[in-house]
């Protein structure tokens, strides 16, 4: 039997018996375990590239409950590359204004008003089930176009045996167990990752002794579309901090920090949740409770995200506090990073060593997220008397003095990871602009009525801006597509890609990160940089 661990919001992949269940184990190039946002995004990416992929999920669809609600611009750009971005932005709530309160008083207000020339907003709020559904919808469309993606619902992996050049999985189903072989296995099976346990891998870091109560309430109240955050909130029994944030469908996320020593069952009783929400929203506000949950969190990661033929991605590999929206957003960057590497290695176009760079680059990203989210947590929940004194001193000063506002940390919101100084990077022969340096993801810019990222082709791209393109259409069998543009009359493109240079050539990876850039370049130089990005450099 397969255990039911949660309720389903959208039943998208009901169990169906497949012939493989009665046959000797079949070998698959890639098996992904876990059909959450990370596993599905990876499956979609691989399938679009034509690499066959099998997703095993122990449920029959997307889990109920809003969970991750805050999706960052980079995530939307990745979703756009995969064809699922527009549906998310259309459904999501765009927000820019945040207010920070201490007790009854407003400390300050900030505006994330994104700079011009980007297709996507800085953030949208969207319930996780929608996010996942839009990716699965896109998988269905891709399947119709022939993408070799297969999803098997109610298939729970209960055993894993590594072999020399593959792994063997035991899969439990309503019709009993069967076995599946995978050349490469990707564990996207969440924070409690059963695969991680099966492999006996440790998961170390800081556990924060705190409980947070989430209440999603549905109401047609007249609150503005803003993020309101309270330190030491004034409403009764609301704990150390509280958050109010809007989602689609007239749903509001309310978050209370309850402390460590609580009775979970008691706190989750409807009358107790309602007492807190009533105190926050004020008398006479009618609402229904859509979803409640109590969560704790850790800031930790695995030592390495690749273990021979097995990769770990998303919460299975790393966890952070929710402050800063760095959970799902960083997991999507894992998928973005791994897909093209696996695809090229499976096609025999890149050495297996390229796959080690997945771990190096995403460990780097996880460390950045853990550092930021640990710092935010230390500010939100002072661990000593003196840290509480300093925290409140910052809040007191921030009301009057601008200098103290950058010190207020209610979560540093997710920004894309830059792979500074890592092994796939080629030369950076432009000093500016810093934001598009080697290792950074390409920054969006306006292009006539559309935007730059929409014009980037799949695969490796040579972006030539007011610079001649060298004659090079492929490197060692890996296609290289040229995109030649002019920054004349396009000051934002010039500002983001040229700085003081008259022209520039950028080599971009399939995940849109910058491999190398030059004021002008020869075919040999591009070839060398691309070989570096394919993991072909010795040592």
């Amino acid at each position, binding site marked *: 039997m397969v255990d039911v661990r949660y309720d389903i919001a959208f039943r998208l992949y009901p169990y169906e018996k497949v012939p493989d269940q009665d046959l000797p184990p079949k070998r698959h190039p890639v098996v992904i375990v876990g059909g959450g946002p990370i596993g599905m995004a990876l499956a979609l990416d691989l399938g679009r590239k034509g690499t066959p992929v099998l997703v095993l999920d122990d449920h029959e669809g997307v889990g109920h409950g809003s969970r991750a609600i805050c999706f960052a611009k980079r995530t939307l750009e990745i979703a756009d590359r995969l064809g699922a971005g527009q549906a998310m932005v259309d459904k999501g709530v765009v927000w820019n204004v945040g207010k920070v309160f201490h007790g009854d008083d407003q400390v300050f207000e900030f505006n994330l008003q994104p700079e011009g020339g980007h297709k996507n907003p800085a953030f949208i709020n969207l319930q996780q089930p929608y996010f996942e559904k839009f990716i699965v919808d896109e998988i269905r469309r891709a399947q119709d176009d022939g993408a070799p993606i297969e999803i098997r619902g109610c298939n729970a992996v209960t055993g894993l045996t590594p072999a020399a050049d593959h792994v063997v999985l035991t899969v439990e189903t309503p019709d009993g167990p069967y076995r599946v072989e995978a050349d490469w296995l990707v564990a996207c099976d969440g924070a409690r990752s059963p695969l991680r346990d099966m492999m006996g891998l440790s998961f170390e870091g800081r556990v924060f002794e705190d409980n947070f109560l989430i209440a999603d309430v549905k109401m047609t109240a007249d609150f503005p579309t803003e993020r309101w955050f309270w330190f030491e909130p004034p409403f009764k029994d609301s704990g150390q901090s509280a958050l109010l944030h809007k989602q689609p469908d007239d749903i509001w996320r309310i978050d209370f920090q309850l402390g460590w020593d609580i009775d979970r069952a008691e706190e989750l009783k409807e009358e107790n949740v309602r007492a807190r929400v009533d105190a926050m929203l004020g008398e006479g506000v009618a609402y229904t409770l859509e979803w409640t949950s109590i969560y704790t969190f850790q800031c930790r990661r695995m030592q390495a995200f690749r273990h021979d033929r097995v990769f770990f991605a998303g919460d299975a590999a790393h966890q952070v506090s929710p402050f800063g929206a760095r959970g799902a957003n960083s997991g999507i960057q894992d998928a973005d990073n791994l897909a093209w590497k696996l695809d090229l290695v499976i096609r025999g176009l890149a050495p297996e060593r390229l796959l080690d760079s997945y771990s190096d680059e995403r460990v780097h990203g996880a460390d950045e997220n853990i550092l930021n989210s640990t710092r935010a947590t230390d500010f939100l929940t002072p661990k000593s008397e*003196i840290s509480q*004194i*300093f925290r*409140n*001193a*910052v809040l*007191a*000063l921030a009301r009057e*003095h601008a*200098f*103290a506002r950058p*010190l207020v940390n209610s979560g540093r919101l997710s920004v894309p990871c830059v792979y500074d100084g890592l092994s796939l990077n080629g030369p950076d022969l432009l000093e500016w602009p810093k934001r598009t340096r080697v290792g950074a993801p390409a920054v969006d810019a306006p292009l006539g009525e559309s935007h730059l990222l929409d014009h980037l082709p799949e695969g490796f791209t040579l972006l030539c801006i007011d610079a001649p393109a060298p004659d090079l259409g492929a490197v060692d069998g890996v296609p290289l597509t040229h995109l030649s543009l002019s920054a004349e009359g396009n000051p934002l493109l010039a500002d983001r890609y040229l700085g003081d240079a008259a022209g520039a050539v950028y080599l971009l990876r399939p995940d849109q990160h910058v491999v190398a850039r030059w004021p002008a370049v020869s075919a040999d130089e591009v070839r060398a940089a691309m070989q570096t990005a394919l993991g072909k450099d010795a040592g």
Partner: protein
Amino acid sequence: MTLNLEPNIPDPDGFYDLLLAAHQGLSKDESDALNARLILVLANHVGDVDVLREALAAARKRSE
């Protein structure tokens, strides 16, 4: 820039008076809060993180 640990306040006794006067009539908690605010105000004025690191080290040394 390096941290100046030589005498730099023209009227030391006058400054000391100011410091104590600022705490006049405050409870221990209020004084602790004032000190924290003062540290943050001064640290921002200094700005240079190397100098701040040296200052933290100099202050910390006395308690070890």
